[in-house]
């Protein structure tokens, strides 16, 4: 722990700057850069169920380890997926950011996120609560886990051709 500029340096401004940088990368679909924000462990999760966190034993909308994240980015950018070539354009807002806990080098942050997408001249909107587990590393903050809880995760969704 002593190696990290821990707790004392964790503040809302630093975390917010990081989350906004991630949001900016995602709206710009700079997915290769986005992959660099991750540690090698952990998951990008979009659960179906609204309660519980035993994601491995549940069906999820996405449950991506590093390998699946990599493959997902390849699919979205490979040019062979009709839904992602071209993808819907997106504009997102991350707000109501709260630092829940700081334990050693691990920061748990949650926020509200709204995403609007546009394709075929129609717009769709998504609202979600997002929780990040961020690691403080020598290279700065990294994402260990990102859990995206869509407001209607267990309801009728529409297909999504980009990343939340």
């Amino acid at each position: 722990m002593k190696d990290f500029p821990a707790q004392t340096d964790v503040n809302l401004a630093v975390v917010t700057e990081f989350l906004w940088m991630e949001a900016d990368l995602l709206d710009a679909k700079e997915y290769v850069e986005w992959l660099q924000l991750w540690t090698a462990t952990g998951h990008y999760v979009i659960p179906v169920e609204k309660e519980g966190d035993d994601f491995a034993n549940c069906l999820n909308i996405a449950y991506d380890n590093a390998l699946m994240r990599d493959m997902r980015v390849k699919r979205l950018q490979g040019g062979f997926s009709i839904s992602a070539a071209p993808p819907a354009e997106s504009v997102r807002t991350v707000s109501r950011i709260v630092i829940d806990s700081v334990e050693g080098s691990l920061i748990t942050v949650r926020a509200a996120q709204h995403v609007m997408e546009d394709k075929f001249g129609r717009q769709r909107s998504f609202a979600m609560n997002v929780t990040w587990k961020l690691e403080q590393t020598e290279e700065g903050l990294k994402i260990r886990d990102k859990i995206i809880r869509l407001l209607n995760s267990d309801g009728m969704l529409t297909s999504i051709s980009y990343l939340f």
Partner: protein
Amino acid sequence: MSLDQTPGGIGTDDLVLNDRVKTPMYEDPALFNEEMEKIFGKVWVWVGHTSEVPDKGSFKLSYVGLQPVIISRDRKGEIHVLVNRCRHRAATVCEIKKGKTSSFQCPYHGWGYALNGELRAIPYTEGYNTDFDKKDFGLKQLKVGIFEGMIFASYNMDVEPLEDFLGNAKPWIKLFMKQGGGYPVKTLGEHQFKVPMNWKIQLENTTDAYHFPIVHKSFLQSLDGEATETFSFMDDDDGYVEDLGNGHSVMVMMPEFIDLDNDDGAPIPERFAELAEDLRKDYDEAQVRRLVRAVGGCGFNLNLFPNAACSLSFFRILRPVSVHETEIRHIAIGMDGGPAAANQMRMRIHEHFQGPMGFGSPDDAEIWERVQRGSAGGGEDIDVMVNRGLGLEKTSDNGLPVGDISAETGMRSAYKMWKKVMEQ
């Protein structure tokens, strides 16, 4: 109204020909209303799986056509399908998607219904005349039929027996359920998404192998070499599509996985090696092989008219919402009481392809929407062609057509049934 005189003046004979269907099939709101009445209002419609209502008092919301229904299991264990509508002034009596209860109570005036739909209690009965009989005001019941755990319902109390309706599809349903690997099949969760398309575009797609290497190229690219080989059915010559009658059909993509109990002795694929190793702690080698084969899923899509499919390793259920909108459910299935590692792998495989963010479904959804967009305006002089394989088909033991893997035999089967039901 008879379909001989649809508002557009087109009869079923003109809408459905053997080799093509007319664009109003995707576009005509009046035709959609007719379909809700004559198809979804009369035939057997898939509503759920018995594992979704496992215990006495379990319930699950579903739909038959446009109407919300409740699947409930009463105190005797019997399954009911009830219209989710209070008999007093029409409010839904339940808006919780699934759970357990002892009764359903309407929130409007407090009418209380038993799990079997009987009206049990109403507040302030003195406001009704003495001839008011609660027996007359139970929740509307649908006819229920269950085959291999799949629950079907019909508004038509005189509908033919479910087993007759399923007919030649029955042995395929039994084969499909072998994915339990010796355990009962249970649902593991579901993906749901809606698509701006007519429901029949989805009905066609489940028997369409032709699109797979094109639309799902990005999915195929994400597989390892062995798995890619498994999905190479368009380049193999042993797959086929068979008309099973009553609008049902089966598309066999991987004949080696028709009967999962027939162990062909092939080495366990690399992608299942870790799972197999895990299972060896608790199972002998024969059981490990059986479980691994079960996890991999079946090698066929069974399309059941009008709204269900047993597709490789999951249930694909469609629900028409309007002429231009359809809701899709991809229900994952697994082994009830089976090894957690096996069910985990089944869920990971399901997530890989299916659902709103799978590597396959979003591309399907995009194509279906494009079909609907291309059909806009009715295109009276341009038809939707389902003629692939015509003239090349053989005849099955059932006396019905069998085409090669990419033949549109299954679509022709579904449209033949569509025409028959709509003309009744």
